[in-house]
């Protein structure tokens, strides 16, 4: 029982991070109907930028933790969004209106370019960060096992819930969210109502990148180890989460992320750590075969 609760906590933490990345996939898919294959790299860049920011804060001697966290968060978000914007501007916008395959290939190219750019500038080795938030609360203790909910896990889960609430409000209640949904349904008509479609798409990429930056920072703080290749697997996992939840659906991405995190944690806890990726991608295969529109997605209606 104690072991189960511990894996539940671990799974929710991991799921939060997947969920944050998955929102970026699902929003971009919603608005342009294409997968942003460079999104995993955006997340990786977010992680590198946060390690950089943490290091610089250490140098300048900012020691009050809430301030440090906010500053790192801001730095990571601002610079990562610039990368997200650039990905759209370079890899997607020039190909708007051409075949879908073309944009897909250019996105994969973008992904490789970003990976190698970080490899060249930051080196192939891993970067490490000392734990910033230590300690935790003991949830439950039996004779030989203690369930610990660490403060960093609390931080990750709470921040994720907060951001998801903000984004859900943004999409449902604000003019920008309405414009995004309008572009999703009929781009031409949105233009005719005075909506700047290009800008709305750019903002969607930027919003996705912001969340990926947060995910990158949280992962850096949680595991303390990052490298230039981390975006690949995490990106695929988050993509799986988005498909599981129903791609294009925002609550779906959150739900998918959480479920995937839980599955992975339990699989690693009860079966085998080495094969946890098999569990995740097995889910992707099963969902694609038996439930292509995902848990909360709408079945795809062919446009006439």
């Amino acid at each position, binding site marked *: 029982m104690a072991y189960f609760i511990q894996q539940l906590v671990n799974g929710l933490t991991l799921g939060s991070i997947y969920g944050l990345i998955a929102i970026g996939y699902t929003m971009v898919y919603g608005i342009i109907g294409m997968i942003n294959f460079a999104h995993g790299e955006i997340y990786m860049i977010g992680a590198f930028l946060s390690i950089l920011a943490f290091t610089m804060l250490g140098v300048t001697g900012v020691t009050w933790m809430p301030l440090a966290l906010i500053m790192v968060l801001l730095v990571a978000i601002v610079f990562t969004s610039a990368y997200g914007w650039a990905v759209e501007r370079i890899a997607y916008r020039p190909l708007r209106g051409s075949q879908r395959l073309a944009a897909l290939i250019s996105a994969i190219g973008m992904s490789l370019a970003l990976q190698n750019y970080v490899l060249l500038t930051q080196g192939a080795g891993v970067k490490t960060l000392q734990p910033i938030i230590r300690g935790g609360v003991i949830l439950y203790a039996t004779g030989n096992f203690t369930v610990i909910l660490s403060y960093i896990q609390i931080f990750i889960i709470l921040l994720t819930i907060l951001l998801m609430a*903000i984004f859900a409000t*943004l999409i449902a209640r*604000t*003019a*920008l969210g*309405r414009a995004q949904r309008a572009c999703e349904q009929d781009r*031409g008509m949105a233009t005719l*109502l005075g909506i700047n*479609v290009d800008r709305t798409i750019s903002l969607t990429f930027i919003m996705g990148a912001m969340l990926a930056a947060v995910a990158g920072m949280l992962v850096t703080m949680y595991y303390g180890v990052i490298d230039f290749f981390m975006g690949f697997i995490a990106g695929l996992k988050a993509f799986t989460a988005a498909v599981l939840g129903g791609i294009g659906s925002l609550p779906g991405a959150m739900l998918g992320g959480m479920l995937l995190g839980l599955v992975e944690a339990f699989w690693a806890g009860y079966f085998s750590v080495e094969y946890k990726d098999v569990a995740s991608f097995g889910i992707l295969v099963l969902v694609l075969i038996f439930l292509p529109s995902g848990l909360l997605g709408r079945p795809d209606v062919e446009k006439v």
Partner: protein
Amino acid sequence: MTVSELLRVEHLTMEFGGLVAIEDLSFSAAQGEITAIIGPNGAGKTTVFNCLTGFYKPTVGRLTFSVLGRDPVYLERMEGFRIARAGVARTFQNIRLFPAMSVLENLIVAQHNELMRASLFSVAGLLGLSRYRDAESGAVKFASQWLERIGLLPDADRQAGELPYGDQRRLEIARAMCSKPTLLCLDEPAAGLNRNESAALNKLLRNICDTYGIGILLIEHDMSVVMNISDHIVVLDYGKKISDGSPVSVRHDPRVIRAYLGEEAECDPGAVEPGLSC
């Protein structure tokens, strides 16, 4: 009363590869008037609309849009969303509502630009500032007035895609009006409507034109609509203008009758489209 010119189309030509869809078309539309564009199928009517609203870039031609009190703008040089912001709204032959949004939301999207400005790009909206809430409630009020007018207020929260066809048509016109245009381009608004509905549509369009003093550009096949409510008719055939004038003069123009009935046609009153006389 002098009518002020709202839109002037000069020498508009649109070619697709070797196909000339519109050739050297010139006409103008005035504020406070309904200008109808008619012509047989394939005459290039919808292409004119596509050039006006930025879907196509005309091969040749100048489209001057001048609202009283503002500098004239040239539509052929502008991006689609800027044309819309300048005050040109449009509906489609095949309805293009946002089917997965509610009826009310469809009308609020049309007021996007005002709301965007009021909400400082949604930052104020996210923080729930009163500045945005006021703008938002103003937008809802404006939309509700339109819903009441077209009789869809009870359906405000239904998904637009669920509405019956005739209601969708009226909703599309209301949505275009919610963007507060000075020129309203309607592509076959009476298509698929029954006699009663199309009579109601006549009244609505005339009413819009007289109340708001905006110009309406109308593509229509239903001659009972065209002849009843238009102030001015432009007739196209194979991409060229063959007649231009008041409904009475157009109705008696031999070139128009020939275009609709063919060169050798016997003048059988039953074969003539209602409203056109031999």
